[in-house]
């Protein structure tokens, strides 16, 4: 199964979602993290993970650029799951991965600049569905404020309702330092030894994301 994490804008938390999801999948399945972004943050995470935590569930990593359709087509038979981290813009990598992906997750911050990209993403998705009609698409709000007084996430969810081609997941990924700390360590928040309230909530967010996408499998 190929899961593409895609957005038209950098800084939406694609790599955070890709690495945390890959590490969660790795607890039960053979998973490959394909870094298609020339800003190789996912690869850096893999390097750190391999070096700092060699005993953690293995997340295989590889970098591929440009047209990655054939690569994904080949690799999908070798791994139960492939998570693709694509560049934060409309790119050949994103489009070619969309042609073979089973699931596309589109992270977006609940900010005007991120939401402004959604109409264009929606158009690209509609085009890709002509070639890959079975692909499942999900929008995902990321880096939401943990301050309950800030209603941005709710407003962003209303914005998404205008784009039925991108159904929004219920789970919202919040802006938490624990995500950044674990990224630089090569860990997932589900693996952290941090017992703080924020770490627990981050863990719940990733578990919920996994359940919502895969239906609790």
């Amino acid at each position, binding site marked *: 199964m190929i899961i593409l994490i895609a957005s038209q*804008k*950098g800084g939406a938390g694609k790599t955070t979602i890709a690495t945390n999801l890959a590490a969660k999948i790795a607890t039960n399945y053979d998973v*490959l993290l394909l870094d298609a972004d*020339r*800003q*190789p*943050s996912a*690869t*850096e995470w*893999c*390097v750190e993970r391999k*070096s700092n935590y060699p005993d953690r569930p293995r997340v*295989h990593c*590889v*970098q591929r650029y440009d*047209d990655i*359709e054939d690569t994904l087509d080949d*690799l999908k038979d*070798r791994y139960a799951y492939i998570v693709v981290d694509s*560049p*934060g*813009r*409309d*790119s*050949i990598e*994103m*489009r*070619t991965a969309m*042609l073979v992906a089973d699931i596309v997750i589109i992270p977006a911050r609940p900010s005007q*600049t991120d939401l402004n990209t959604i109409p*264009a993403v929606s158009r690209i998705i509609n*085009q*890709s569905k*002509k*070639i890959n009609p079975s692909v499942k698409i999900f929008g995902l709000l990321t880096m939401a404020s943990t301050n309950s007084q800030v209603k941005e996430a709710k407003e962003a969810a209303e914005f998404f309702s205008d784009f039925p081609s991108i159904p929004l997941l219920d789970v919202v990924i919040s802006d938490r330092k624990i995500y950044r700390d674990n990224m630089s360590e090569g860990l997932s928040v589900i693996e952290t030894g941090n017992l703080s309230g924020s770490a627990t909530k981050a863990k719940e967010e990733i578990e919920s994301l996994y359940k919502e996408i895969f239906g609790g499998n």
Partner: protein
Amino acid sequence: MAIKRSKDVEALKQQFINNVDVDTSLNNLTKLSNDQLVDQFVSISQQAALFQGRILSELRTRFGNDDRKFGEYISTTILSDIPSHTRTRLMNLAVFFERELLKQKRGYPI
């Protein structure tokens, strides 16, 4: 509905891929938004980091197993301005990429 033949699908695919909206040439900076300029800056910085890692890695191999001599040499150059943990991170990244490239060239399964 007309059934699409394989050559039609291929043409549709090519059209879809060719429609990609990228223009990262430095000649067209004026056309980019502020956010796109920032993204491009970060992208180029990251690519530079990979090259820096490869250069450091090459330099390191010239000192064999002698960490001390390598450290002494670095201390006499402008590279001493880069913290040692940053140098190590850059080299690790470069080594990782080199290994993957080698595997690819040799046709090893990933």
